[in-house]
């Protein structure tokens, strides 16, 4: 009755589109790149004028370290960064909350924020020097203003996105206004605030270097500027590497904070 029918397995056509992290690939790629660079410099493929060898840059780092100025540069920069970023972020969260919670603040402050946000704060540096002095004031102010506006926007966006249902739940149980803000709105806006912090931290590092390029004796930016004007490219590489490591540390710290504060997201 039944003759054998030619049958095939149903071809698999799902899967893919799901990149997974693979361990040790990143350090390996980094190491290979540095080795290739060193090899290129040694054999003369990469001219020393174009790019100094990694070993030379490392030597320049040792010189800097032995001169005792390394910690001076790093601590000066860190002080400005931490001071400017934390005040800018704190004020930004405060104003962002006001915009998120009050109609009057939203109507008055939001247009101002939108108008000031796109201004490159570096362009205002001369003004900041006149207002806050050539010393620490102008540098901290540049970072403060640079981190303030993105934090405001991240925070009020976060407040806007807190589920209305949760707020209504709070009201239906007769929770006080302050309790609703503290226990529902703030934690609900926290993911957005933290991703804003990630962005504002990178902006802070960029502005740090820019601010230190005017009237600064110490600081990573001042070191990079000096190296640049002397065409000491090996020192330049050291300065840039320090900035990159600083950025990695900051992003690692924020990652830690996200893990600790947002562990409920799983």
């Amino acid at each position, binding site marked *: 009755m039944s003759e054998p029918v030619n049958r095939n397995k149903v071809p698999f056509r799902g899967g893919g589109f799901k990149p997974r992290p693979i361990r040790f690939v990143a350090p390996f790629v980094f190491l290979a790149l540095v080795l290739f660079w060193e090899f290129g410099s040694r054999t003369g493929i990469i001219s020393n004028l174009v790019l100094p060898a990694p070993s030379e840059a490392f030597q320049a780092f040792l010189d800097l370290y032995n001169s005792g100025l390394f910690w001076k540069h790093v601590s000066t920069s860190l002080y400005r960064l931490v001071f400017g970023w934390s005040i800018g972020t704190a004020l930004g969260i405060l104003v962002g909350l006001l915009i998120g919670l009050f109609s009057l603040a939203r109507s008055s402050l939001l247009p101002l924020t939108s108008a000031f946000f796109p201004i490159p704060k570096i362009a205002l540096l001369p003004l900041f020097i006149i207002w806050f002095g050539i010393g620490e004031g102008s540098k901290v102010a540049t970072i403060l203003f640079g981190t303030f506006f993105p934090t405001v926007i991240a925070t009020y966006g976060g407040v806007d996105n807190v589920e209305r*249902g*949760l707020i*209504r*739940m709070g009201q*239906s*149980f007769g*929770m006080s206004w302050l309790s609703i803000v503290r*226990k529902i709105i703030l*934690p609900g806006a926290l993911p957005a605030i933290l991703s804003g912090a990630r962005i504002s931290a990178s902006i802070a590092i960029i502005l740090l270097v820019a601010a230190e390029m005017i009237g600064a004796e110490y600081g990573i930016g001042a070191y990079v500027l000096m190296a640049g004007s002397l065409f000491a490219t090996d020192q330049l590489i050291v300065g840039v590497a320090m900035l990159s490591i600083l950025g990695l540390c900051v992003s690692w710290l924020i990652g830690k904070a996200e893990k600790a504060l947002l562990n409920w997201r*799983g």
Partner: protein
Amino acid sequence: MQISIENLSHAYGSVEVLNDINLTFEPGEIAVIIGPSGCGKSTLLRLIGGLEEPSKGAAYIAGQAPEGSLNPLTYIFQDFALLPWRSVAGNISLVLEDHKLSKQQSKAIIDDVLARTNLSEFHDALPRQLSGGMKQRVAIARALAVRPAFLLMDEPLSALDSQTRELLMDDLVALWAREAFSACYVTHNLAEAVRLGHKVIVLSRRPGKVRDVVEISIPLEERRERAVELEEVQQQLWQMMREEALAADRELADV
């Protein structure tokens, strides 16, 4: 404590949602409101509990709330409305924190309501670790914690699958048998209406009016066994709902 609604109408802009509703909710009774989608059932519930203000008329509370009731009118929401960053116990403690209770008092209340909803072992679990049914049990425990005089339930089982729904209906019947609570239960599910309702209020399509009120005299605990009699009531309700639902379904949504 008795809740009543008098001459209540509500409109969103020019769209009239509810038209001249008059209802009375008796203590110790579960009143179920059914109606086609968009007829204003959920709006009516928000108006009763004071989460929205009616355009006309009002809802009234007659008499004092019972002694010890922290939040007389308490909601249970369709989407559970649990804070994802708080544990099960934390979500219940949230609604107790604004009342001046000692640590031991709060703890005693939390342990009691978790025991009543069979959740004691999930004390420290986060909402994301729980199934939908468990989340709604937590929300029910949270509502019980404030010792409500009147429960406002907004499609509490509609986000759950049918097996879980059956289990939770049994739980609600058991809770009611233990301590007869008063509730207004909004749903579009007729099976839920006839299982849980002492009376079923049928709303017409928008603008919602009270079309009929059907009393069901079979005791809640016996309803599972007397399914045939319930089926008759359900058919009767369906006949009423059918044309309304059909007409509502064919309406153009331009709200």
